[in-house]
């Protein structure tokens, strides 16, 4: 059996002494598409940031691809798509320039080669922004900016893609474009961890849902039957059959 892609045991994170994540276990194996769900402040962003080493664990052990996190240096295997922020940087940058930074994980200090340029062009094409390559990122719509961040994460052909709220503030068309891109990646064997408060078009892809509340795992298992949940208003959800499905639909409807 191969090592799990992510193996977190008893992971805790404290911000200034306040717990944000408490004794969370999370194992993700290759090929899974895991949705991390939860209300604002439930610790879902903290969880993925801890997985990436962006916030230190105050307790627990973390391994990535079978390597303890402290010794993990194979960063090109991980593609990180942060939450899009409204704040722009001081100097405008083009789509091509931003996506090209994703390639630095494998390039190091050497100059760009043909293979790097091909990888960047392919990543931009994968999110359908080829025509905007030379445009400033600041002139794009929110959904297009999100696609730029995804393209940046794809330049190294990652085995694991981690996305933080990729659909937040994104128009419906871009949400579908995002789901299409993810579907193609998943078909190619990429493992995906996506933090979100609404799955929308991504729901068909998700193989497992982890719901957090107050820094703890509330629910971890196969995603409930979502056909009606994402098509209809959760407040008018279909009648609940049995205690098990009640738990799931109640944790699912978090917004």
């Amino acid at each position: 059996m191969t090592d799990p892609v992510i193996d977190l045991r008893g992971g805790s994170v404290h911000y200034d002494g306040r717990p944000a994540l408490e004794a969370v276990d999370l194992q993700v194996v290759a090929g899974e598409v895991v949705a991390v769900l939860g209300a604002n402040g439930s610790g879902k962003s903290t969880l993925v940031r801890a997985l990436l080493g962006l916030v230190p664990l105050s307790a627990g052990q973390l391994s990535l691809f079978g390597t303890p996190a402290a010794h993990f240096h194979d960063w090109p295997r991980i593609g990180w798509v942060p939450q899009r922020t409204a704040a722009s940087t001081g100097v405008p940058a083009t789509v091509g320039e931003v996506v090209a930074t994703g390639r630095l994980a494998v390039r190091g200090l050497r100059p760009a080669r043909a293979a790097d340029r091909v990888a960047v062009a392919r990543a931009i094409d994968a999110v359908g922004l080829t025509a905007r390559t030379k445009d400033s990122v600041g002139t794009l719509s929110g959904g297009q900016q999100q696609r730029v961040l995804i393209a940046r994460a794809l330049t190294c052909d990652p085995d694991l893609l981690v996305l933080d709220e990729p659909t937040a503030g994104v128009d419906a068309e871009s949400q579908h474009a995002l789901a299409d891109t993810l579907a193609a990646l998943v078909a190619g064997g990429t493992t995906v961890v996506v933090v979100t408060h609404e799955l929308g078009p991504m729901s068909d892809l998700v193989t497992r849902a982890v719901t957090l509340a107050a820094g703890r795992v509330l629910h971890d298992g196969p995603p409930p039957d979502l056909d009606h949940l994402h098509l209809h208003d959760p407040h008018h959800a279909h009648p609940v059959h049995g205690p098990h499905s009640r738990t799931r639909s109640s944790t699912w409807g978090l917004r």
Partner: protein
Amino acid sequence: MSALEFDFMQRALVAALLVGLTAPAVGVFLVQRRLALMGDGIGHVALTGVALGFLLSTAPVLTAVVTAIAGAVVIELVRQHGRTGGDVALALLFYGGIAGGVLLIGLAPGGSNANLLSYLFGSLTAVSPADVVVISALSGALLLTLAVVGRQLFAVCHDEEYARVAGLPVRTLNLLLAVSAAVTVTVAMRVVGLLLVSALMVVPVATAQQLVRGFRATVVVSLVAGVLAATSGVLGSYYVDAAPGALIVVLALCGFAVATLAGTLVRRLRGTSTATASETVSLLPREAHR
């Protein structure tokens, strides 16, 4: 009889050319990181270094380089680890640097206000043959460094967290940028002066932003703007007998005003036709099949 016949003017022009290149080259990263005033903070600290040079009767450039680098590293460490915000750390350096400089120069035996003024606002006759050598060596090293790690610095300044996940040595790169800013300040000190050096790191970049939309293009245009302002300012100050730093900055600001006007006009002309057209065209192929 041209100004260029004088040795001191030739030296000043060479220095101005190098300063016009290095200041915006480093400044573009500071602006991108939203630390546009960092050059100012370092300039103030370098003043203490200059005064220290007078006090110890050693070359002020040398003590200025050392003090500026120390100050820049402190700013960066405070920003990385401290609970103090970057802006407060800068403010502390502003005050400490000026106060320390004035205090020390008062204690120095031969120190006078005239000495200090040439360091604050630059001086045409201040650039000695030895200065030209030092400025050339430091500028060369800076430009070479930026050519090698420019992309990494861009990545860190654009999105520091992403750069960390990509495995880039973020802390080292941040320190490198701080040290580069410090070296730039001392390179520019003789011609532009410590109080105005930061303007040459920021204004050409702001000028370029009015005209172009990519980072690389911004770098190229800001270098051109920086060289134009620095060299024409040095030449002009010979004829009007003014402090070169002041004229360089005034010219740079005029360039900014012109670029803003031109940029606004171009955008207004383009905004109604081309921009919206390209937006529609690029969206169609993707969304049409759905």
